[in-house]
């Protein structure tokens, strides 16, 4: 019997189970009740966590941009997000004329649901994990598909050209980036021999970040793009698309797209921490499972802070740059790395852990140096031609005599 302070959640769970069994509830229903309570608590906690996260992000972005950030409501502006939530709760829901009502209302719900559903399989500590699913990683990737459907629904049902274009462009970006993401998520699976997230966590005697830093980098960048945050926030490029797929939404429906975006941002940090940073592992986490929560939270917060830093530092990409980065750098690189790591790690079977780490790190470093060379030489090639063929300007004289401008169309 574990003590309360060692593992409070398992303690409470066992207590509840025994209580229900004592009351004569059949065993199957005990399971259902336990799962329902767990799901409601976890989902609510995740949604409430977004409120804190909103404050943190606004404050940090404010500091990065040499502003104070929220500072009026409550100490350090801590109550600002709560005030925002109350405000958005009382705003009118406008349904644009010609909107397709069912998909229009379904879209924000599905968007949040897709972000929440990821939390069902995340292992939080040695003893507390949602579903011990034997296809955990694939589940994470599949849930992303539901988010894409939600975006298509939102864009199409709004009866607005810009919403539709924004939605389809967003989906094009999301599906593109899920290619290198899926490919680099194969590497932790190879190392651990399981698709189960808890098994992957347990297999990380050495963090997979040290065994495969480049796939980890690809995975992280692709997750930032999947979330659609700066520098990949084309979906909401105001200057091009009004505001993307959520233009016609107002009130809490709009708010939920916002919530889904923030929730996804933390969720991908969580997934990155589980796949590459050892999840809940840390000194004493086996004996005191409650520590696992702390470690996982610290690790994913570190990743999340990195994402905020990226958002505050980098300018937005253009859509063609986004696509080039994905299809011409990340996808081939992920494929090549997968081949190289599969081959190298085969010959390292049974080698000392230190040797294995060193060799794999060396391989990754070598790959990085070669990539850097290739990219910078490509960059040089691209910068050489200064005089591009100029597109004819629509001046009156050009329109009358297009051949005289001397520029072939």
């Amino acid at each position: 019997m574990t003590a309360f302070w060692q593992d409070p959640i398992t303690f409470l769970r066992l207590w509840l189970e025994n209580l229900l069994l004592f009351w004569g509830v059949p065993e199957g229903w005990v399971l259902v009740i336990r799962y329902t309570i767990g799901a409601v608590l976890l989902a609510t906690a995740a949604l409430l966590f977004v409120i804190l996260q909103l404050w943190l992000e606004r404050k940090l972005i404010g500091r990065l941009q040499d502003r104070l950030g929220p500072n009026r409501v409550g100490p350090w502006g801590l109550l600002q997000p709560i005030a925002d939530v109350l405000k958005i709760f009382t705003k009118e829901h406008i349904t644009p004329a010609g909107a397709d009502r069912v998909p229009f209302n379904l879209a924000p719900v599905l968007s949040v649901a897709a972000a929440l559903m990821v939390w069902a399989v995340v292992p939080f500590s040695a003893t507390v994990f949602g579903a011990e699913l034997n296809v955990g990683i694939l589940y994470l990737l599949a849930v992303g598909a539901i988010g894409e459907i939600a975006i298509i629904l939102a864009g199409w049902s709004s009866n607005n050209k810009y919403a539709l274009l924004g939605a389809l462009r967003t989906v094009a970006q999301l599906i593109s980036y899920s290619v290198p993401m899926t490919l680099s998520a194969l590497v932790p699976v190879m190392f651990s021999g399981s698709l189960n997230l808890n098994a992957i966590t347990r297999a990380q005697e050495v963090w997979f970040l040290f065994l495969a830093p480049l796939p980890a980098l690809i995975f992280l960048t692709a997750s930032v793009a999947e979330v659609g945050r700066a520098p990949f926030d084309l979906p909401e490029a105001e200057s091009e698309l009004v505001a993307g797929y959520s233009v016609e939404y107002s009130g809490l429906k709009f708010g939920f797209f916002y919530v889904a975006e923030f929730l996804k941002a933390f969720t991908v940090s969580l997934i990155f921490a589980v796949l590459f940073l050892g999840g809940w592992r840390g000194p004493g986490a086996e004996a005191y499972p409650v520590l696992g929560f702390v470690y996982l939270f610290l690790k994913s917060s570190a990743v999340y802070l990195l994402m905020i830093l990226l958002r505050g530092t980098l300018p937005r990409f253009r859509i063609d740059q986004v696509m080039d980065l994905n299809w011409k750098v990340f996808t081939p690189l992920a494929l090549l790395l997968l081949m190289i790591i599969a081959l190298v790690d085969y010959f390292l079977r049974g080698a000392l852990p230190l040797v294995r780490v060193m060799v794999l790190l060396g391989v990754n470093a070598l790959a990085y140096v070669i990539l850097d060379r290739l990219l910078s030489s490509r960059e040089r090639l691209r910068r050489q031609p200064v005089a591009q063929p100029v597109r004819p300007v629509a001046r009156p004289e050009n329109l009358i005599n297009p051949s005289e401008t001397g520029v072939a169309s």
Partner: protein
Amino acid sequence: MSILQWVFVVTAFLTVGAAVMMVASRRMMHAALWLAVALLGVGVIFITLEASFFAIVQLLVYIGAILILIVFAIMLTQRTDESGARLNAYAWAAAGIAGLIGAILAFTMAGWIIGSTALQELGSTFDAVLPLGQALVDAEGYAVPFEVASVLLLAALIGAVYIAFERKGERP
């Protein structure tokens, strides 16, 4: 009936209903969305069969990729008039033929003796992914189909690029 059978019956009805709605809906995008519901239903049926991997693949490939491909294909077409009748003149004949084929299939299935090979019950911890992975690349398993699948995917990629870009080459 056990709970699992109830889940199966409800999902099966939802799936078939969504498939019917897909055929009968007036707007193309609605048809695509009903298709998503039908595909999801098939995924749930895979789950009731404890085939987690296939359930997830159903979700990942069919809803995640093929459905989005279909949506893009719909958006690629010109706007068509969507106000026509739901069913055309042949609808009832088609429904009759489909019903007949369904009845024949059901009749054949009912007479099919599954008991001829002894079925083994798999343990509750049985994980189908590992044996699947071993069989896929085993020389005596499915190594050749595995490689052929890769060639097939390559052919699909080249074909798509060819169709989309060769005509463009004619234009200077």
